[in-house]
Every structure is written in C-alpha cells, then in structure tokens.
C-alpha cells in the first residue's frame, strides 16, 4: 500500500524534475515542477477527436494500458512492506501485465490505419520484446542469489557483502535504468522531443490520441517512470526504518529523474537501425550479473 502511495506521489513531480534538469542543463530556467502534471490535468478536461477508421479497440486501449501499469505498481513492495499483490514469482506477473498494456497500445496504434503509427508500433513491439530477456535474467539472478522468487522477499533478503556484490548492484541499477528508458521510450533509444514522425517510436504511436486518452497515456508514462524508480530504490531500502526508507526512496527517485534529465541533455539518440542490437546487448549485461552471482555463491567451477 505504502509503495502505491509513494509511487503515485513521485509520479506527480517526476517528469517535472526531468524537464527542469534538462532546462537547467541547456541554460534555461524551465517550467515549474508540476507543469507536466498540470498539462495532463488540462488534457483530462478536454474533448477528443477520433478518427473514422478507428474501432472500439482504439477506445479501450488507453484505459487498459493505464490499468496495466497500475496493476504492475501494485506488485511492487516497499522495504519490509509487501506490495498489495505479492506471491512467489510475482515479477513474472509484473512483466506480463506490462506486456499486456503494451499489446493494447500497439493494437490501438494499428487501429488508426496510419502509416506513421504502424511504424511506431512496429518499433515498440520489437524493442520491448528485446528488452524483456534482460529483465528476466536479472530477476532470475537475484532469485538465485537470495533463494526467493517474489519481489518482496528478494529485496528484503538482498544484502550487499563483498565488492562483487556492490558491482552487481551497480550493474543491476544500470540494466534497470536502461529498461526504464526503453520502456518509456526515452533518450538513448527514442527522442520524445523529436519533431520528425519518421524517427519517433512512442510519440508517433499516440499521434491520434487526444483529450482524456492522451492524458491517461502521458500520466501512464509518469507512473511507469516512478515505478521503475521504486524498483531501483528497493535495492537500497532493505533494512532501514520506515522514515529513513521513505527518505531514501524519495532521494533515489530524484536522483533517477535528474539522471534521466542529464542523459537526455548530453547524449544523442542512437541510430534507429542499431537500436535493436543495442537493446539486445542489455541481455548480455544481465548474463554478466548472473555469472557474478554464481561467483559470489561459489558455484563457478
């Protein structure tokens, strides 16, 4: 429960922080922290234009996409506190629920019959498919390390002992940050600020969404960011009291947001054609983590 509240809270200012970082990095003052949220609320109050090509799929897709993210958030624990849903192997559920949302956002895009949106959908489908093994192998490594298979148990029994384990923690954070960037279609893979439809991934999928639906999708992105931030924060909140944990949680989220902002300010988007290979290499980092875990446990012969 507490993780849900905290994630929703973070989602309100997360994107604002990213934008503020980017503004400062480019020498501007930038909008207020809550400006993105205000934009979303404004969208929620607006009417929408629908294409005459679309069917009911287009109407239900954003709602299902949004609820899939909410559902995934319910799985995430906070320190000692379980998520609202917690069972052995819940990270499989987490990944698959997100995949369901992705499925709907893809077919929602295809429903418009637009060539641009087909293009975006194609890329999104491919990228998220390629990012998935990295996540599973990462979680598998931690399952092996801790001997548990639910988020809550993995995080509570995770303890850093040796230098290798700190290295693994850093690598895992890297993989999670990268997965978060891919899942949210952010910088190294996709540039949300691009103005050319041909080079967009996520933005081009939602070209035809407007009004309330667009607001849902945009807020979904904020939530997703906060969700991955929470996942990363969980690596560090293991054994502290609740107050300190909350502070650590907020600190990690802010660092994550700043990091995203900095990444977006100082790095260029990869060539579209090479994205697939790049994403797939994340899996090899996960495999590195796996072998690192083997090393710690002395199973390496």
């Amino acid at each position, binding site marked *: 429960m507490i993780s849900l509240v905290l994630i929703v809270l973070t989602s309100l200012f997360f994107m604002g922080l990213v934008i503020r970082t980017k503004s400062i990095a480019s020498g501007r003052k930038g909008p207020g922290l809550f400006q993105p949220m205000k934009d979303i609320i404004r969208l929620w109050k607006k009417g929408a234009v*629908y294409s005459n090509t679309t069917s009911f799929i287009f109407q239900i897709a954003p709602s299902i996409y949004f609820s899939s993210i909410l559902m995934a958030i319910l799985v995430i624990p906070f320190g000692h506190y379980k998520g609202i849903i917690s069972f052995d192997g819940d990270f499989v559920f987490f990944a*698959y629920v997100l995949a369901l949302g992705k499925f709907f956002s893809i077919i929602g895009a295809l429903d418009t019959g637009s060539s641009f949106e*087909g293009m975006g959908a194609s890329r999104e489908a491919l990228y998220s498919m390629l990012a998935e*093994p990295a996540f599973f*192998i990462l979680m598998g490594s931690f399952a092996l390390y801790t001997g548990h298979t639910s988020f809550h148990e993995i995080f509570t029994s995770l303890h850093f002992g040796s230098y290798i384990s700190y290295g693994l923690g850093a690598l895992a954070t890297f993989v999670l940050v990268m997965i978060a960037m891919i899942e949210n279609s952010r910088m190294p893979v996709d540039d949300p600020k691009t103005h050319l439809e041909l080079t967009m991934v996520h933005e081009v999928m939602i070209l035809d969404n407007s009004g309330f639906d667009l607001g849902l999708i945009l807020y979904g992105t904020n939530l997703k960011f906060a969700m991955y931030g929470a996942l990363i924060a969980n690596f560090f909140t293991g054994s502290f009291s609740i107050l300190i944990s909350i502070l650590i949680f907020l600190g990690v989220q802010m660092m994550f947001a700043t990091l995203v902002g900095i990444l977006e300010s100082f790095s260029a988007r990869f060539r579209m054609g090479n994205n697939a290979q790049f994403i797939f290499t994340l899996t090899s980092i996960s495999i590195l983590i796996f072998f690192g875990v083997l090393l710690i446990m002395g199973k390496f012969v």
Partner: protein
Amino acid sequence: MAYIQTYIAILALSLLVIPFLKVKWKGIITLSLVIFNAILTGYLALPALLGEKLEFVFQGSIVTGEIPVRIDALSAWFMLLINFTMITGALYGLHYMKAYRKQTSNLTLHCLAYLLVQTSLTAICVIQNSLVFLFAWEIMTISSFVLVIFEYYKQNTLKAGINFLIQSHAGVLFLTLGFIWVYYQTGSYDFSAISQFSVNFPPVTSLALFFFFFIGFAVKAGFVPFHTWLPYAHPAAPSHISGVMSGVIIKIGIFGILRMLQLIQTDYIVLGYIILVFSVISGIYGVMLAILQHNLKKLLAYHSIENIGIIGIGIGLGTLGLGQQNSTLILLGFSGALLHVLNHSLFKSLLFYSAGNVYQTTHTMNIEHFGGLVKQMPHTAILFLIAALAICGLPPFNGFVSEFLIYSGLFDGMESKEMLNLVVLLFSVFGMVLIGGLALLCFTKAFGSMFLGNPRHHFQTEPKESGNGKLVPMYMAAAFIVAIGLFPKFFFSLLSEPLKLYLNKINYTGSVSTTVSITETMQTIGFSAAGFIVLGLLIFFIRRKITAKMPSPVLTTWGCGYVGETEKMQYTASSFIRSYRKLAEPMLSIQKRKIEIDGVFPVYGRHETHPYDKIEEWFIDKPWNLMKVFFGKFRFLQNGNPQFYVLYGAAFIALIIAVPLINDIIKKIIYFLNQI
C-alpha cells in the same frame, strides 16, 4: 466393461448408418454421436481424474494377447480435453461444412473419419497393449489424413496430406521398433513390460528405448526438427480440422511422451536436459518462423510448434525434477505442461475457428489482403483477440497460468548446485522470454493487420460476420479460456492426481507444503486477474463518465497534413515486421524478390518475401534430393514395357521360392565345410 462394448457397438452401427443418410442428417448425427461419445468417455474419465483408477482386461486374440484398458488420471486428463475440443470442432464444422453441401460422398467420408479420429484418440489414451495401441495409432493417422485432404481436388491439399501421411508413418516406424524391442526382450505386449524392460537394463539402454518412442511421438507432436509436415497440413485442412488437429491430435504425441516418461526408468537428469534443449529450440524456431508467414493458417501452424516447445519445457523441467528427486520441480514442470496442453487446445482451436470465419467470408488467407475486419466481424475479432492474448501468455487469460507455472519451476530449479543445471535453466528462461516477446510481435501483427485499420483489398462480396452456429462453439472455448485465467486454483487442483503419477516415482510421501504454497499462489493469481479486469473496467467507466459530456468529433486519421484516403499508405504486415526480419534474416531462409522504384516518374515497384524453413531444407529436402539421385540410377527398370513388368513379377516369385532352397544349400555348404 459394458460401457466400452456399448461404445464400440454404437460406433460400428453409426459407421454403417451414416453413409445412407441425407446430407443434412449426416452432420447432425455425427455431432450427436461425438457428444454422446464424449459424455460416455467423460463419465469414465471423471472419476479417474479424481483418483479412481479403472482397469478392464479384454481377452484379445492369440496374436495380441490380453488387452488391458487402463484409465488412470493422465489418460483421463487427456480424454477430457480431447473430447471437449472434439465437441467444439464438430459444432463448428457442422456450420463450416455447409459451404460444401453438394459434395455428398466426400462429406460422408469426412464424418466417418471425424468419428474415427475421436474414437482412436480416446483409445490411444487408454489402451495399454502395444500392438492394439499401434492399431489405434494407425487408425488415427489415416483418418486424420482423410480429414486433411477434404479438398483433395486442390493439388496443394493433396500434397500436404501425403506429406503428412508419410511423415506420420516415419513416426510409426520408430514406435513400432520401440515396441518390438520391448517385446523381444520381455515377451509381452503389455505396457507394464516397458517399465519392466527399463528396470532390467542399464539406464543407457532405457534412454535409447525412450528415444525411439520420443522420436515417434515427436513427429506427431511437431518438435523441431520433426515438425515439417505441420505447416503444410494445417493450412490445407478445413478450419475446424486444423483447430482439432492443432488443438488435440498433435497433443496425443505429448501424451505418448508423458506416458513413456511414467513407464520408463532411466537417467532422468540427462533426459531432462535433452528434452529442455529440444523444446527451447522448437519454441524459438517455431515462433521465429511464425512471424514471417503471410498465410494466416500457416502462421498459426508455426505457433503450434512454438507451444509444443513450451509444453516440452514443462516436461523437461518435470523430468529434471524426477532426476533430482525434487518434488517442487516435478509439480511445477508437469502441471505447467499438462495445463498448457489444455490451454493450447482451447486458444489454438479458437484461433483456427476465427481464421475459418475470415476465410469463408473473404476466401483468402493472405494476411496482407485483410484490414478493418473488426467493423464487419466484431465477434470474430473479439474472439481472435482473446485467443491471441491468451496464446501470448498474457494475464488475465489461461496462457499466463501455465506459463507462470513453468517460469516458477525454472526459477525454483536454479536452487540446485550444479553449473550445467543452472546454464540449461538460464537458457530455458531466456527461451521462454524470447518466445513470449516474439509471440507478442506476431500476434499484434496478425490481429492488427487483419482486423484493424482500413481494408487493403477489395473483395467481391463485402465480408460479413459468421452465423451464430459458428460463434457458439467459439464462445464455449473462449469461456474456458477466461475461466482458467480467473480460477487457476480449481484447474490446478484437478491436476493433483495426474501429478501423483510422477510424484510416486520418487516416493514422494506427501509433504504438502509445496503443493499448498503453489495452490495459494494460484489463488492469488486468480484474484489478481479478476482484480485486473475490475480495475480496467473501472478506469474505462471513469473515462466514459468524464468524456460523455465532452465534444468528440470524428475526423480522418492524422496524416501529417495529408487528409485523403490512406488505405495504400497503411503499414502492411510485412512492413510491421521488417526490422525483425532484418535481424532474423541470417538465421532463417527467406527468398526475396524486389523491383526497385526508380526514375523521375516511377511506374512499377514490387517487393516479395517468401519465408522458407531452413531446417526443412537441410533435414528433408537435401536427403530427399540425394535419394532421388540414388533411385534415379534404377530408373532403367521402369521402362514402360509390360513384358518387363511381368518378368519382374516372375523373378520376384521365383526369388521368394528360391529363398528356402538357397538357405538349404548354404547350410549344406557350411555343414560340408565344417566336415572338412
């Protein structure tokens, strides 16, 4: 006993009666017989599934010996799921076949073959005498061949059918060899002789025996590289037959493998590794090729290979558990596999029925020609969507439950200390995830380009929704798909008896804790699935409440300023998977033909891709060509001269007569030599 005799009597009677009925009645009688058979076998199977084993022994003849008919929990599980899909198939087929009403005699054969398939499948599940088992297997193969070649006047159909027949018999050959080996060593056709065999011999010998059976059954199930008949047979058959074939007929191969695992004692760890590797390759290869297909039914056929791979991963995991004496692995692996068998039979048949609906109104299976069908065929679209989500293993549908069990098993299995074990399991996790992701790509392509967007092709007649007759069996399957997703605990508990068959092998004394925790997890998954549906509905209703009063004008799709009709500008199925194709190209065999657009006023451009099966190239085509060359050397024998053919006959008869004589002479010579 009496039940079985009634069953056989009614079947024989109906086989005699159906040819003389009017066309309208043939279908109805067949359907009612299918349902009757299903009820009768279900009546026997249900108690067996709950733990009451049944055993009848028929007298048999001198040749066969006693024929034991044993209905245990494993056979019961398969009998029930086979009969359910058989019923939906018959219901669907009754209306599907209306289009072929005029082909009376062909329909008669079709109805008879359908009944025979149902009976022989049930028989295979229960008969435990290898000779009679092979008989039933043969009847099943031949009658499914008859079902496949319904449209025999099309050359491709006939070719696909014959391909299927030959490959199935290659499988039968291996089964026969396996059974003969057992008979030779033990002198009994009873299945219990197989376990006796494996106890008597060292594990390596039993492993070899298992491989004879494994190859035999793998041909039917469609494991790579024995899968090559599948992508031809499925598109050729009528849709309800494709559904039944992919849904249950290939599963009988899985049944065979599971049965042999239960009977044969061997080195389970090695076996588990081998099955896992086979299955992961099948799964990944199947879905990799599925994405590239342009023919919808061929796409679905490759997905069957993928799902057989997933089932195989479950089986391999369970086998590994048998070897490591790990009850959790056995529970998770076999329950995942068994549940996935049921799940796949449901969503795959549903997908094929939807494909049938689309085919009968558009008369094409080319994905590139569809578009926007959701408006004309909303029911088919929703049913296809449900099945597509389920086959991708997404919650809240049934595919997730079985894949989840297998995932849990893979992660739990990592507790073992061995390096090899860990690497194989990691490879399997990687395989499962990749399969899931690629399936998602494949089904967004299929659903998106068939049902969404604008029509890409002008059909002679406007496509329209199928009648209720076809939709009812589809909704039946869909209801089960949702039910398993929402109440996984119940379906998991049904599996407890079949699982005991395997748990007993390691003398599992019933520490219930693992079972309890899995059951609890299943319940939580059920609640989460329900919660997810409620959440989705809630958000949708909030959205409707808020947006109800707002203006929502309808305009054309945003085209970057271009507002004309955009059918031709739409992304096609091929372009949707283009980046994937580029990635996968080195591993697969894709033929491309391209005419580039050039010049100031381009006239004509063209781009074609024809995906082909690399394994088929290596495994079937190359040996086949070599054989052709070899046998071509003897072509001079076939010179078209009747006199020569008479001579061959005479020479053959002479040879037959001469064999004993020559034998005698040889003996005499040997005797003579010995004397010296």
